[in-house]
């Protein structure tokens, strides 16, 4: 018998000092949980890529605190917990640990496993410790969980809406065993156990906190911190001009080839209130890429969080501050049964693109989409790794640069947007000992960064030569609808993927939509050109000296400088005599300013 948290009832607010102490402690517990997984998991995606996040929720499933991870990932942790609270009702006990991965019970897509455990004080549920990790397999039709041919959710893998793996401290051996036999990876249960251990660690730490301060104080602190965040977000919104701002973002195609998937958003600001409405987004039933409600909701908040003061504590207050309308049946809120593994990324990330584009009309400064155009993670595998004599499965995760936009005052830099800065990418020297391939390069591509007053980061050319017959699956986007520039800044280059490069020229495959299990022969290469980031502001306003620097650095060609920026550069890098022709630049820019141009 449990008593529910009565968070909706009026009760005194916590004193601000205790609230701050509790906030700091809970974020530390999140860090401890996430670190526990990193230290102990066996799968590279967890311990190498940092693709794990910890959150703490209150007794009714509101987000109370989170750790550093991938923003959108953390923000999808609440709905599966709320389903479990509702489903189990009074049958939730101290010592329970629950696993959930179902996109239609609040999750994003099947590979993201959410493991959570309740914190009780007596028979009262006070807090929930939750840890989310991406796993390498989901037991569906194809290894890895990304089935480009999936027509429904059941062909993508096993759904776990909310399953107790530990009940009242006792492990459910039957459940664990069922999960083990429904997954291809030997390390799956071990990694799940790392998550279970992390959740249990969180419960222990949070139990100490509850014991120290008492249930009432902890609830009051959560209320105070959530209200404080909501108020600070609303203050930011109040600073934005009232009105309705709309934008479209498009996905080239789903893996089945359905083209031009539209994500439409209208953001309405009334004083300190923001309504985000996706009515008008694609509703074609035949689509094979859908972003679930929970996934869409996470992308909304992740993009909004990048637009406000980064020091505002991340909690339910972000959700409270906005009204979200996502009509069922649109590509960003599918009816139960649609396939979602691809849609988690596309049209998932286009949710962020659309919001950035809409808000760039009024608050352009920090407004760059914190998104990516990955398609789906590339998968390469073969029957025979000459080094081991065994089959191999290479899930990508390698380093490249792509889709990193500029903001006002800062050119795109590094390899990826800041929101992915916690992902650490794989290296050539280690991976070449794991897989039969050679990385031939991953350099920036000249003229691929979106031109702007501040330039988007160039994309990169990634070349992987295989040393043994290797199959590849790849779903492509960003060939026609390109990652956008902002406020007059232009798009960068799009994505391209060529297979069998280096073999007979006529055999080269230009992947336009998707490929599944295409065979590459030894000595042939996969060449993937990752797209550039969008620029910010009109390229004609870019400081000519900065353009000249880019030419010296071969990020922009002499032709590109004139075409995209109106900067006429003479000489050559080889002759070490580059210079700006100032009068010619003046003239060229005057002509360009007179031409009608827009964000392409």
């Amino acid at each position, binding site marked *: 018998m449990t008593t529910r948290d009565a968070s909706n009832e009026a009760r005194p607010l916590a004193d*601000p*000092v205790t*609230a*701050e*102490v509790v906030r*700091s*402690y809970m974020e*530390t517990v999140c860090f401890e949980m996430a670190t*526990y997984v990193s230290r*102990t*998991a*066996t799968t*590279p995606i967890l*311990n190498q890529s940092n693709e794990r996040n910890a959150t703490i929720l209150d007794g009714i499933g509101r987000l109370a605190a989170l750790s550093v*991870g*991938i*923003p959108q990932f953390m923000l999808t942790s609440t709905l599966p917990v709320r389903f479990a609270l509702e489903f189990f009702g009074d049958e939730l006990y101290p010592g329970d640990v629950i696993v959930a991965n179902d996109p239609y019970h609040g999750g994003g897509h099947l590979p993201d496993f959410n493991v959570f455990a309740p914190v009780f004080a007596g028979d009262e549920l006070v807090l929930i410790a939750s840890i989310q990790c991406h796993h390498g397999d989901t037991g569906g039709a194809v290894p890895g969980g990304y089935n480009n041919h999936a027509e429904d959710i059941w062909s993508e893998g096993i759904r776990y809406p909310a399953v107790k793996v530990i009940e009242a401290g006792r492990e459910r051996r039957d459940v664990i065993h069922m999960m083990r036999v429904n997954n291809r990876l030997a390390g799956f*249960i*071990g990694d799940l*156990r*790392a998550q279970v*251990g992390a959740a249990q660690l969180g419960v222990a730490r949070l139990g100490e906190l509850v014991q120290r301060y008492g249930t009432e104080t902890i609830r009051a602190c959560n209320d105070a911190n959530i209200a404080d965040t909501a108020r*600070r977000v609303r203050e930011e919104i109040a600073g934005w001009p009232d009105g309705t701002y709309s934008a479209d973002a498009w996905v080239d195609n789903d893996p089945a080839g359905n083209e031009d998937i539209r994500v439409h958003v209208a953001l309405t600001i009334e004083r300190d209130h923001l309504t985000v409405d996706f009515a008008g987004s694609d509703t074609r039933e035949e689509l094979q890429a859908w972003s679930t409600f929970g996934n869409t909701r996470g992308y909304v908040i992740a993009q909004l*969080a*990048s637009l406000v003061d*980064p020091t505002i504590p991340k909690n339910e207050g972000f959700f409270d501050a906005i009204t979200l309308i996502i009509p069922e049946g649109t590509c960003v809120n599918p009816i139960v049964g649609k396939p979602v593994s691809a849609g988690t990324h596309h049209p998932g990330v286009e949710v962020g693109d659309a919001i950035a584009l809409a808000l760039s009309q009024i608050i352009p400064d920090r407004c*760059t989409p914190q998104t990516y155009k990955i398609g789906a993670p590339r998968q390469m595998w073969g029957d025979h790794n000459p080094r*081991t004599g065994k089959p191999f499965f290479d899930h990508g995760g390698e*380093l490249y*640069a792509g889709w990193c936009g500029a*903001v*006002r*005052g*800062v050119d795109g830099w*590094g*390899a*990826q*947007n*800041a*929101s*992915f*800065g*916690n992902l*650490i*990418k794989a290296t050539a*020297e280690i991976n*070449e*000992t*794991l897989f039969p391939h050679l990385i*031939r*390069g*991953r*350099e*920036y591509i000249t003229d691929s960064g979106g031109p702007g007053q501040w330039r988007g980061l160039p994309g*990169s050319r990634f*070349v992987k030569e295989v040393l043994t017959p290797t199959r590849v699956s790849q779903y492509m986007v960003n060939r026609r609808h390109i990652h956008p520039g902002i406020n007059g800044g232009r798009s960068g280059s799009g994505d391209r993927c060529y297979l069998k490069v280096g073999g007979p020229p006529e055999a080269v495959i230009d992947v336009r939509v998707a490929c599944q299990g295409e065979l590459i022969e030894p000595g042939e290469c996969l060449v993937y050109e990752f797209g550039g980031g969008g620029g910010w502001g009109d390229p004609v306003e870019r400081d000519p000296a900065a353009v000249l620097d880019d030419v*010296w650095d*071969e990020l922009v060609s002499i032709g590109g400088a004139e075409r995209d920026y109106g900067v006429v550069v003479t000489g050559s*890098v080889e002759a*070490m005599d580059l210079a700006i022709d100032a009068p010619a630049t003046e003239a060229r820019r005057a002509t360009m300013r007179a031409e009608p141009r827009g964000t392409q």
Partner: protein
Amino acid sequence: MSATEGYRIGVDVGGTFTDVVLAHADGTIRLEKAPTTPADQSVGVLDALALLASAEGVTVVDLLGSAAAIVHGTTTGDNTLIEMTGAPTGLICSEGFRDEMDLRRGYKEDIWDAALVAPPSIVRRRVRLAVPERIDCDGNVVVPLDEAAVRRAAQRLRAFGVSSIAIAFLHSFVRTDHEVRAAELVRDEYPDVGMISLSHEILPRAPEFERTSTTVVNAYVGPVIAKYVRRLETRLKDGGFRGDLLIVRSNGGVCPPAAIERRAVATIGSGPTGGAVAAAAAARAAGLADVVSIDMGGTSYDMSLVRDGRPEVKTEWNWRHRYLIQLPMVDVQAVGAGGGSVARLAGDRIVVGPQSAGAVPGPACYGLGGSEPTVTDADLLLGRIDPARFAAGRRALDVEAATKALTELGEPIGLDAVEAATAVVEIIDAYMADAVRRLLALAGSDPRDLSLVAFGGMGPVHATTQARALGMRQCLVPLAASGFSALGLIMADHVVDESRTYLAPAENADLAALSALADQLAADANAELTDAGIGEDRIDRTWYLNLVFPGQTFDVPIPIAIAADTPISPVALSAAVDEFHRRNAEARLIESRAEEPRIRGLRLVAVGRSDHPDLRPPPPPTPIPARSQRRISLNGEWTEAEVVDIAELTSGGVTLAGPAIVELPFSSLLLHAGDVARATANGDVLVDITGTGAGSDRLEGNR
């Protein structure tokens, strides 16, 4: 010989002061400090040594002439990176890998800040030149070195004014000849090049970004550091010094200047080495096992873990000044919390730091124009600091100014000055305890198994509160809390901590290849220690096998038994693998050996024990200052506290129970009710934390 025979002198250059400590043969010490001279740190070093000589009543020439060793910690490399004043640097790399320095494996420091700016570039793209060549992971040449391309690159770099060149090719740690040949070609084209740094010499390890970055930073700071060390050697020699100059490295030990010439980047991040070594030594002397050392000053709270008597060293993913330096470093984590941390309102919440009022204007109570409330102001208002004795009475504190600042802070949320002060202290104590929890989470340690060593000007004021919050039972405050880093240098050992990469699944490791790597590591370490005059009887060697699950990023070093000139046995290897599995099983992680680990390499930590006396406290002053009483506030309640001079404790046999204040030379030690303090043999103060401590911080008692 004079009475100064066997002098060992520690010289620690800090941001503001250059501290020098001299240890006499009988174990007593003398401390002096002089202002740091940033332009050429060796000037300040000589100034401080002159003060030391005069305090000893000898001439500088006599002092230097009879010193056996001078142990020097320098921040020249760190300053060079902070100010970006290194040598004009270029990079020659493998075709296809021109942009590694910018890509940074995708890492950015703040995932929430879309407007985060890029780090200043050491090697812009125009001076990163890729040449055709490729070696595979087995050392086969896939693409021969394009010698003409290397020559062109050298010419280009020269034309760009580059004077220091890094060369980093893929898999060069497996096969070195391409880098070696490229260096010859560069010298041929550019005979007066200032310096060439080869990646297989600077960091003979995978993976490529880590090795390239470390090599590039070495190329950048190397010429500056080498020049500085040579100048210091000259000045000391001119001053009559005939002993050994030893330079502190980030790995927690010292080495001769020649080793710095070979790899100057190893001094970056060495600043905290002295404090961590001193903390380890003080803990050992007090009979404490593993400890967390905290250094709380004006702006930052530096934490490190000491296990098995040595500062914990982090071997990977060490970022300093936004550059990755993949060398072992004393693992010091810092957060922006100190006496100068500014408290303000954010929404309805009080937040403290990370901004600091610094030394100028400093806390409001300094009376130097600062008006913002700080932690020092709060401690002052709560009676934890004596306004008349602060900084040994050198700076009178303005209580009224502190009261005014804290009144203004509390007013909007209905707190008076003392309540606001209580809030500020409670919050900063919570932040700091949480920061320690994070450090320990990364290390997989439980704070309740550890003790605390607290130093720095503000460390003793907050030490017992921290210990309680973390559930620790003992807390040590060193007598020489000021100048503690320099003291640590005197005790620092010679440390060679090197790793070599060997990549293979553990089940089919080539033991002959692994043994050959071990021989190479041992030979290199022996050469360095022999150069430094360390005899075999003073060398301790610990070997580790670096293991990971397939694809894991960070190596897990597992001890392995390796004997000199003996091939590694299959038994030793499988014992290490078993230990790896055992550690994972202990954490309840892996239900079976579902995954077999992979070997990432070998690591040797060779320690040459230094020769230094056991420390002893100075004779207590006579008369010992009398006790007094002071009202202090502990968690919102005023209480009468005994105020006792440290000399009373060190004079022997006295124990002191809280609530009380122990006045130290440059700080105050706060004792809560339930704390009992006594002096150790070498004059430090050891506090037993017992009971719940009425009036103590609420975050106590984790157990």
